[in-house]
């Protein structure tokens, strides 16, 4: 799904007029890009994300010690401090921490994106249905979100992850199970606000069926705010999956995972500060990137919520 490219063509019968709320890509995109560039921090955020994504894509082929990403042992070099040969030092079995941080980017980024994609898909769909059709189905959906939102995120994620069993895939499922209610509420609020707008009325009066009006007309216009939330949430999803990895429910060894590496390094805090520090720094940097990007996107896509000052 491209950013705001979800069928933005104005229907020929409708013309622009009051329907200015719908996006016209070229002009819209240019204005958006300008607004985005005006905020240097968003550009920094985007740069960080692009860099991390590039590392995740090609990094594993370029790392100095590819074998260290799997179960290689090199006991003689264990817990060596940072040096030219090992810029981030080595871990308790002598593997290169730098290599493992680079290779770990893939799992972390993937986890963040997959979690949010799942939560967004499920939450938006349910929220749109609840908002557009209302009635007891809508009420029932919203009561279910209430229940999910009653339990603090991390506890619920822990419960789901424990129930599903360890492993990165299960952690991703667990975290998206915790996060869909946020999207459900947001989508519902947006759809309720938009469903009686003129453009939706017009589409209905032209004979558009309920599902068609919802999915082709109302939802695409609700999408920018949802996307802003998603761009910030990817960072938090990475934090949460890393946290579950740290606890021991995520990626299983020897696959490199930032959260697991921080946890492993914990046993060697006294003699090897670098072991936990660098993977943690990678998490921090990535999450900062998504937060800055999300702030910038909010200014661009959701001008009503633009920050003051």
């Amino acid at each position, binding site marked *: 799904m491209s950013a705001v490219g979800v069928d933005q063509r104005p229907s020929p019968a409708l013309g622009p007029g009051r329907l200015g709320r719908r996006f016209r890509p070229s002009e819209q995109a240019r204005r958006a890009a300008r607004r985005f560039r005006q905020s240097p921090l968003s550009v920094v955020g985007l740069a960080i994300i692009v860099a991390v994504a590039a590392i995740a894509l090609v990094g594993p082929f370029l790392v100095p010690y590819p074998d260290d990403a799997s179960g290689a042992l090199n006991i003689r070099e264990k817990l060596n401090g940072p040096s030219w040969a090992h810029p981030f030092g080595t871990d308790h079995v002598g593997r290169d921490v730098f290599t493992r941080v680079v290779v770990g980017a893939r799992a972390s980024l993937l986890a963040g994106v997959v979690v949010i994609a799942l939560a967004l898909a499920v939450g938006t769909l349910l929220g749109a249905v609840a908002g557009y059709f209302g009635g007891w189905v809508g009420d029932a959906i919203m009561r279910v979100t209430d229940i999910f939102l*009653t339990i603090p995120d991390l506890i619920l994620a*822990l419960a789901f992850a424990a129930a599903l069993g360890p492993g990165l895939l299960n952690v991703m499922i667990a975290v998206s199970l915790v996060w869909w209610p946020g999207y459900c509420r947001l989508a519902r609020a947006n759809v309720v606000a938009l469903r009686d707008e003129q453009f939706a009325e017009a589409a209905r009066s032209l004979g558009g069926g309920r599902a068609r009006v919802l999915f082709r007309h109302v939802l695409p216009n609700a999408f920018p705010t949802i996307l802003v939330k998603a761009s910030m949430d990817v960072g938090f999803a990475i934090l949460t999956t890393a946290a579950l990895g740290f606890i021991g429910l995520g990626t299983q060894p020897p696959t490199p995972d930032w959260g697991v590496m921080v946890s492993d390094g914990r046993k060697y805090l006294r003699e090897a500060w670098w072991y936990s520090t660098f993977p943690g720094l990678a998490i921090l940097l990535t999450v900062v990137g998504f937060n800055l990007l999300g702030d910038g996107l909010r200014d661009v896509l959701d001008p009503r919520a633009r920050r003051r000052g």
Partner: protein
Amino acid sequence: MNLARYALRRLLLIVPVLVGVSLLTFALSRVVPGDPARLAAGAQATPEMYEQIRREFGLDDPLPVQYWTYVSGLVRGDWGDSILSRRPVAADLRLYWPATLELVLVAMTIAVAVGVPLGVLSAIRADRPTDQVSRLVSLLGVSMPAFWLALLLQIFFGLRLGWLPVSGRLDPMLGAPSGGTGLVLVDAALAGNWAMVRDALAHVVLPALTLSFPALATIARFTRASLLEVLGNDYVRTARAKGLVERRVIFGHGLRNAFIPTLTMIGLSFGWAMGGSVLVETVYDWPGIGLYATRSALTLDFMPIMGIALLYGVVFSLINIAVDVAYGVLDPRVSHA
């Protein structure tokens, strides 16, 4: 009294939510891989023994009956047993809850005491260096993995400088505090045992700082945004025009109104801090619910996790009600009719 009636109605509305939460935890316990009866029976069990245990656990009953058994147990205070501690979950929760409550309370006190002034400072110096620094702190606060920050603080303040203890809640040499609240700081202070208060404070500093950081960041960010918004209002201009000193404008007119939305954020942060305690307690070996949750999750000891989810559901609901009631007290415009 209107507010009291409102609070009571909200309290009653917790019941359906709790029924929902219990349905959720029940559903969760049924998807746990590994058959609880098999687990309890052990590897050497004969098929007959296994069948008997299944019957004893009520696993042969239809699901609605099983749910009913589970819920009526909850109401009676039977929250199941922990396989790991071999004790009733309810007793474990009573044992561990005060430690977590103490940690979260100290952390939230720090978060509010630092976060609100930071947000105010940021708003009145908007876009100046103070504001930039405070926004950087906020950004780091929400982006920092709590478990990692905990380790950094341990390395620096505990291992390098040796200023503060890096684990536990109290030096075991001091014995256990006597007192009814279960909050070591309160019990020790009430008993006049200042050595113990000092030791407990030293133990709580690092975990509480770690736990407070994301909440502090969010509160500062939110205070800044809502104060800036309020300060743009006409009545603030009026206050300035009639010659009030800036301090009165900011605190009397600005913050008083800006604090109301911030209060919601503080309530939510409380919930996040309870969740975050899982990580912080794990790193600092803090003997609370969070550590209990981690241990249970790792050993697939499921009853404690269901109990914790329920307990936190109740606590979080109560906090939200308290916030909504506080709204009514702070802002006469909010109607609870």
